[in-house]
């Protein structure tokens, strides 16, 4: 906990200061360490995602930023101001809750105007601003409805409008799309992204959906057991996962342990290979005695198709390599492949050595 806080308010932060800055954050609930030493800087105007399975500490970090929980150790700084010990209503952030938390006894307009009302904005003005915010989320026509008369997607938008109407510098979103069905979720993803771009405010987005995190974010932090295991752009996290955990949590990966890596790749250590980096060709006629060969940086491995799963836009093919491991391969349906492989077909699995990512062994278990 900081002891340096003075009675004077610190000066307004310079724009180059991080929107959110977390240092050595730690939070325990009873015996459970929910957040275990998180350091993080989130820039102004960034769309930042915190990705992880449930219980990984991402939501607790969000609640620490919002002020619903108080850190046991560490500091939370918003725009250069230390807010570690401040109450939620003294922080310039707003939250879109997972269950939306709309006030059931108020209509949509009063819900959206709430933040303005408690700030003492005049009635006519807060009505106008609330209607404007509702317009932003295309719900101007439902201002008189009660929350229980709205669909899930509409509630979601009301929650969004309620949070942005007070023009916070940071918007925190706690799995806001989790309760929506797939179609609506994809539509809301597009709208969220557009909204963030137009408003230019910082979004901190908590999700367990890796695809959502990858599509929306400027940067992603992958959480595990209360810590950040990897931090980077979606591309970095996907293309260069740091360890086997990230490699298999973010997207699907074929993991090669040290023995297999040595045997197939001729390299030491653990490696990951994305399913879409592998191509398959029929090997009935070109079959050789050696199960693996490496030429010009391309690996070719013989295998037998164990399963073919039709996914619509793609096929997922599972191949048992003769050299040992089982390989998951993703083939675009519209690709060169005329007839998909069948169970029992002998195939060449082919991939570039450059596409194989070495992983840090530290998290290997």
């Amino acid at each position, binding site marked *: 906990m900081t002891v340096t806080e003075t009675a004077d308010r610190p000066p307004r932060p310079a724009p180059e200061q991080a929107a959110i800055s977390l240092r050595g954050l730690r939070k325990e609930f009873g015996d459970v360490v929910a957040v275990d030493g998180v350091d993080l800087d989130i820039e102004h105007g960034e769309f930042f995602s915190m990705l992880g399975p449930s219980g990984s500490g991402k939501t607790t970090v969000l609640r620490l930023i919002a002020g*619903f929980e108080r850190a046991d150790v560490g500091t939370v700084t918003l725009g250069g101001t230390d807010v570690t010990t401040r109450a939620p209503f003294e922080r310039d952030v*707003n939250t879109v*809750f997972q269950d939306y938390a709309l006030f059931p006894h108020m209509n949509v307009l009063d819900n959206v105007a709430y933040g303005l009302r408690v700030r003492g904005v005049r009635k006519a003005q807060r009505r106008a601003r609330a209607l404007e915010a509702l317009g932003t989320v295309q719900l101007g026509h439902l201002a008189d409805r009660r929350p229980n008369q709205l669909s899930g997607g509409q509630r979601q938008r009301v929650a969004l409008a*309620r949070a942005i109407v007070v023009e916070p510098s940071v918007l925190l979103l706690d799995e806001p799309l989790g309760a929506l069905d797939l179609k609506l979720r994809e539509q809301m993803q597009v709208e969220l992204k557009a909204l963030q771009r137009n408003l230019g405010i910082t979004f901190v987005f908590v999700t367990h959906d890796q695809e959502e995190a990858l599509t929306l974010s400027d940067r992603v932090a992958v959480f595990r057991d209360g810590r950040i295991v990897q931090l980077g752009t979606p591309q970095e996290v996907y293309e260069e996962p740091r360890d086997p955990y990230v490699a298999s949590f973010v997207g699907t990966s074929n993991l090669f342990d040290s023995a297999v890596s040595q045997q197939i790749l001729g390299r030491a250590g653990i490696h990951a290979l994305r399913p879409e980096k592998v191509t398959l060709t029929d090997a009935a006629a070109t079959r050789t005695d050696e199960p693996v060969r490496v030429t010009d940086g391309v690996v070719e491995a013989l295998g037998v198709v164990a399963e073919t799963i039709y996914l619509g836009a793609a096929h997922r093919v599972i191949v048992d390599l003769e050299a040992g491991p089982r390989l998951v391969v993703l083939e675009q349906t519209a690709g060169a492949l005329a007839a998909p492989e069948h169970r029992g077909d002998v195939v060449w699995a082919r991939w570039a050595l450059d596409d194989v990512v070495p992983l840090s062994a530290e998290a290997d278990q």
Partner: protein
Amino acid sequence: MILSRRVRWALGALTVLVLAFLYLPLLVVVVNSFNANQAMTWPPSGFTLEWWERAANSEGARDAVWTSVQIALVATAIALLLGTMLSLALQRYRFFGRSTVNLLVILPIALPGIITGIALNNAFTGILDLRLTVGTVIIAHATFCIVTVFNNVQARLRRVGGSLEEASADLGAGMWTTFRLVTFPQLRSALLAGGLLAFALSFDEIIVTTFTAGAGVTTLPIWIFNNMFRPNQAPVVNVVAVVLIIVSIVPIWLAQRLSGDAEGRP
């Protein structure tokens, strides 16, 4: 589960029997309040409003009603205030001894009235050296009235959850504003239900009252008890009993309608 016709019939008959056993005596009291025969013979020999008129003019009965109403109102008000604060504290905050406090609050309603009565009587007269008045009755009633409010509010708070209050704080509202604009509106019907139950509970209480009421304090149940065995007062007692039935049942019926999850009377 599908029941056979015979079982259904038997269960139906049993239900009617039990309900008849419960409510026929009450019905007899109501009918007798209009019975023209002063000896209350059955079947009634005719219809009269004489007893109602006499009850309305009976100063003793009127005073007793007024005393009971006053006691019930003030005890309910105390219960509403303390019960709400208690349930908010226990439901929204974590602190040492929380579950113990929870148990201690509910306990008075489970304790036999005679124990509560004796204990409070000892405390008032022996330890605190107070004169027994309307005030001591109010305090005594409040001890178990709190429970109905507490239970109702507790159930409501549990159902509503804390995220509305977090949302309010998040949007810039301080503690009082949040209570006024968000928490209280959510509790309103639970408070009404708990308050009505508390009122009904206090209005017909007699055991604790006998131990905590001073010589001059006559609540309605005590008045009935004192006049029951006086032959010429019997018809008037019937009328007062009908009033008591109405005043007790209507709030409970309302409370039931107001809160599906009311855990009022044990």
